[in-house]
């Protein structure tokens, strides 16, 4: 098990390294590049040359990359030009991380809590109206652009019916103590229940919007996987042995059907990261997604670089954890 984890960690470092090279080369190959981004309209040839020298951009690309990596391992990824001008790019990442973790976590909880039971039920009652309705719902869920789902929810639940807050993470004027930066958890830890409740209310709409696609995917995989397992000989054998429906369900069907679902949940972290860019923009949540959206739009390359590499690292890391979970659930993998 330890060797397995170690090997995967090394692979992960490899992927992130290759990625950093790619992002680096991409950014440097842009017409104009960072100098134009910094100088904007004021770029005379002399000023450009001076700045290029100051930034070390007159060096060959491999040298530039090594210098960048040398600073990067010391935690210096450069300074933001547009998102928060002058702020350290890595600091922005850490400042924004809790909001995105909180949002993604709730979205994933919603997707799993609805997707797996509904997928199971739909498979057990294949062909019934329940099955058809949920399948259609999941297909439509994938066809709706995520940010539009966000807008629909915001428009009806916040603007028209005034049930939930329109945007942000917390009501203005509410003075809450910060511990972790995860607002709901902070409220619970400090026993400021009103703050926790307020933060939770702010989370509902964006989390539901973000959950639509992971829900649809998890639902469909669960349904397909349960259908597969129900056809297996060992389920028929279990039935023939006279085992109770409860035992068959728990030990034979669910335990086997859950494996592909676990992998899928890991892959959904990708959808969550991409979706966070859109959802956080719609609901004005100051998270990584929102910072990415600004960095994309205003070409803040230092921030872009950090966030993209970090996002990929998170994605790869989560999937490593999923693979470990996979080994825990499936003893056949563990014993080999």
């Amino acid at each position, binding site marked *: 098990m330890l060797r397995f984890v170690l090997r995967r960690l090394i692979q992960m470092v490899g992927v992130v390294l290759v990625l950093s090279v790619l992002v680096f080369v991409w950014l440097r190959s842009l017409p104009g590049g960072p100098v134009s981004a910094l100088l904007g309209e004021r770029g005379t040839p002399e000023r450009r040359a001076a700045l290029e020298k100051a930034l070390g951009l007159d060096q060959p690309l491999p040298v530039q990359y090594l210098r960048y990596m040398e600073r990067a391992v010391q935690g210096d990824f450069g300074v933001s030009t547009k998102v928060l001008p002058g702020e350290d790019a890595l600091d922005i990442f850490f400042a924004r991380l809790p909001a995105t973790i909180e949002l993604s976590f709730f979205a994933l909880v919603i997707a799993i809590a609805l997707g797996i039971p509904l997928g199971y039920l739909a498979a057990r009652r294949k062909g019934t109206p329940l099955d058809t309705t949920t399948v259609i719902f999941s297909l439509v869920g994938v066809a709706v*652009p995520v940010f539009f789902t966000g807008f629909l929810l915001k428009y009806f639940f916040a603007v028209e019916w005034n049930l939930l807050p329109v945007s942000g993470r917390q009501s203005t004027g509410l003075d809450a103590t910060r511990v972790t930066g995860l607002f709901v958890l902070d409220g619970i830890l400090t026993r400021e229940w009103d703050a926790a409740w307020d933060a939770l209310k702010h989370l509902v709409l964006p989390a539901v919007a973000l959950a639509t696609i992971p829900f649809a995917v998890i639902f469909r995989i669960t349904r397909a996987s349960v259908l597969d397992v129900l056809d297996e000989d060992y389920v028929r054998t279990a039935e023939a042995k006279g085992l109770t429906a409860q035992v068959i369900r728990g030990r034979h069907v669910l335990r086997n059907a859950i494996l592909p679902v676990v992998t899928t949940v890991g892959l959904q*972290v990708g959808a969550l*990261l991409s979706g966070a860019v859109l959802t956080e923009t719609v609901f004005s949540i100051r998270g990584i997604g929102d910072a990415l959206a600004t960095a994309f739009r205003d070409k803040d390359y230092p921030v872009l670089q950090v966030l993209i590499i970090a996002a990929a690292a998170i994605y790869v890391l989560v999937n490593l954890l999923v693979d470990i979970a996979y080994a825990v659930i499936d003893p056949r993998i563990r014993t080999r």
Partner: protein
Amino acid sequence: MTPTPELPPERTTYAERRSQRIDALASASAAEEGGVSLIKSAWRRLRRNPVFLVGLAITVAFIALALVAPWLAPWDPAARPLLDDVRPQSNPVPGPEAGHPLGADDKGRDLLSRLLVGSQQTLLVGVLATFFGLLGGLVLGTLAGAVGGWIDSLVMRIVDVMLSIPSLLLAFTLAALATRPSQWTLIIAIATVQVPIFARLLRGSMLAQRASDHVLAARSLGVKQRAIVFRHMLPNALGPVIVQATLVLAVAIIDAAALSFLGLGNPDDRRPEWGQMLGKAQPFLGEAPHLAFYPAACIIVVALGFTLMGESLREALDPKTRR
């Protein structure tokens, strides 16, 4: 008892498993059934599948609309007949009136005409993004699958790295790297993200073909390598790729909307595109939600059409569900 060798995918990475899913789809094309060709038996079941028929109907209607839209549209989508009615403060988006059943957008352009003509650019973005993604995947996948050896390893390592970045995020990044965003940068960004998926799919298909009897027969008859690849392997390997292309069409149209929403799409809106219309309607959501709802509804219906068709095609071509 000795452990069975073909037990689960042993200690595979998530990327490998994601790959295996693609490969499983790829090998589906290699399966043959006595007498009846795969396509024939698939078509026989598809004809009676309501899901497929609904998807097909939507798709055909969409393509037909895109072809005749310029003649259907009552106004030029770039003309601004209602410009005089636009009041930035009191009435930013003129409502319906005689001759303009859906009203106008924030620049006084007829909304119905823009929706109708918008189908053209939307179809174009979807088809071109899918086409370029397919083309890139075709070249890489054929190279890897037909040549094998170190080229195969190299191509597949690149593909794996690309698959390790969430795809929509990669599309955002690529589009953001363009200094002057346009319809083309958008199309290329979406297409690039699809390349590794198509490449892996095609490679798997080609490998299955390489091991098949008809290729062995061709080789023993002394047919040239190039003819084997292009005449015998490639045409037979395309089935799952076409299924994937149908699904990618839907994804491309939805992703185009997301890119436009982030301001990474085409800034020139004289030739309308639904995703762009939806993206540009955001500032007016409070006063004129219909400006966003109409293009969004169009996107949802069309994306659903392609998805329904793709999913039922996939099911029909999957040997496990064949009877």
